[in-house]
């Protein structure tokens, strides 16, 4: 196999493992946000196992690429990715949301290696990532900064403050990925406070925009791995909330729904 097909096989295998592990954690804890975990799984698997340069033995290495998880509630997918990337052992996953666990309901960089910011309240990731990219720009550093936001999260004005400054400063080593599953916790984004036409909004703020199928690893690898252009890049990843489990797909109630034993068993049969 070629390097690229090896990489794609690794992404596929790890994405499947991440979904199964994340759902097992959510089932055990009876807490979590599995719908958003599953819409973001293929994006995050592609980043960690095909794009980002990092050293899990030196999590704060200055030259590392940064990944900021703005949709901090989707910890099932983030924690399984960091585990598979080598930041901590699998045994930690079993403690998810337990008393005193390092695996909070929302990530904490002070005790979980690989986490860049303590997110959870929405609209925080892109401003922080913008600051990281400015630091890199000042130094002429070659690391890249990626940030994943939900789509409903773009209703937070702070994102657009950051979009304006990042466009103004032409932070071309900054990439925002929008997990465009079109559902927020209660209903559709377009029924709530519509985001469309979303590509035009980002372009108007001075970004280059790519749209991609957020579950197509080859397409994600191509767009996320592409060399930086002249402007910051927005990748609108069209996704399905709950992707991979038939009864969860496109159901807003699985934003923070948790499975009973029967549902868990069915999901494990489907996630193969």
């Amino acid at each position, binding site marked *: 196999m070629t390097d690229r097909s090896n990489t794609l096989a690794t992404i596929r295998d790890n994405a499947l493992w991440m979904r199964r592990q994340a759902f097992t954690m959510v089932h055990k804890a009876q807490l979590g946000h599995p719908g958003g975990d599953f819409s973001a799984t293929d994006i995050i698997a592609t980043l960690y196992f095909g794009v980002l340069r990092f050293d899990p033995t030196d999590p704060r290495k*200055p030259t590392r690429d940064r990944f900021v998880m703005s949709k901090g509630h989707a910890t099932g997918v983030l924690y399984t990715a960091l585990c598979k990337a080598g930041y901590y052992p699998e045994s930690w996953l079993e403690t998810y949301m337990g008393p005193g666990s390092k695996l909070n309901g929302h990530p904490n960089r002070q005790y979980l290696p690989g986490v860049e910011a303590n997110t959870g309240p929405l609209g925080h990731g892109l*401003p*922080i990532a913008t600051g990281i990219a400015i*630091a890199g720009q000042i130094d002429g550093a070659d690391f890249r900064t990626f940030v994943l936001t939900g789509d409903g999260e773009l209703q937070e004005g702070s994102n657009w403050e*950051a979009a304006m400054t990042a466009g103004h400063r032409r932070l071309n080593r900054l990439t925002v990925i929008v997990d465009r599953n079109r559902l927020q916790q209660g209903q559709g984004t377009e029924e709530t406070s519509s985001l469309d036409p979303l590509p035009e909004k980002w372009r108007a703020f001075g970004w280059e925009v790519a749209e991609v199928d957020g579950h197509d690893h080859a397409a994600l690898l191509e767009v996320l791995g592409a060399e930086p252009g002249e402007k910051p890049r927005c990748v609108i990843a069209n996704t399905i909330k709950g992707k991979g489990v038939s009864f969860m797909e496109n159901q807003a109630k699985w934003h923070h729904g948790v499975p009973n034993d029967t549902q868990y068993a069915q999901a494990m049969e489907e996630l193969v």
Partner: protein
Amino acid sequence: MAQAAAAPQSYKDCRNAWVATVEALAEADPRVVVVVNDSIGSSKLNGFAAKFPDRTVNVGIAEQLMIGVGAGLANGGKIPFVSAAACFLTGRALEQIKADIAYSGYNVKLIGQSSGIAYGELGATHHSIEDLAWLRPMQQITVIVPADAWETEQAIRWAADHEGPVFVRVSRTPVPDLDVPNRSFRAGKAELVREGGDATVIANGTTVHLAAAAADLLKSEGIAIRVLNMATVSPLDEDAVAAAAKTGLIVTVEEANICGGLGGAVAEWTAANHPVRVERMGFDGFRTTGSVEHLFEEAGLTAEGIAARLRAALGRT
């Protein structure tokens, strides 16, 4: 008294000390950057911006972004000084201060300009008298309210050396240098400004020199007042408060809301650990428009006003 137009020439705008210090720090350490919300002029940073254009990050009128960018710059190895009017810096971006800086543990310095009621006539939207109450519960942040230009420089230098978030209030209302010999700044430690055993005034910021003048007035009446400069509001110097409690009466004085700031901190600690009578001087809510001098006088924040409060509390009227 504290009004800009009427201030004696020896009174100093502490912003000058801030900007001279941050320029010196930037000369010595390339990691030092400033982040502003279109507040270059009000932070007196025009000279800094001319000297260090690449290290002057002006995000525009966007305070939530400003704090997030501060956290991101710290992630990227910088020592960011985020400088903006204290009212907007703290109030508009409080959740960012909580999550991105205090909870995330990023090494960001927050510089609150024109704090307290320095923007007198502009009204309560522009007064920053709630900032201390908002920041104190985030114990990761060291909260410092310098009393004069010298202490402003010391606090900024200490903040640069300290690994962790710091909030420093910078006064635009001119103040004299405190007349205390052989000073040395220690974060988290009160400074003895006047010694006395009949009562203790615990003050900070622009009110310390007023408290000292009040003590001097009362001395001539045979009343001995201890005056402490409690520049660091969080963490509180508990030993100094315990010793103050032994004088039997504590009066706190600050250019801030009496709820939750220095007065709140002292009242909380003494109520829990060393019950004593505590009188709190400051502002008890939103103020109407007026000059700084008017607002200080209205709240009794003058040498005579503080002395009168002490006389009354001591039954010496």
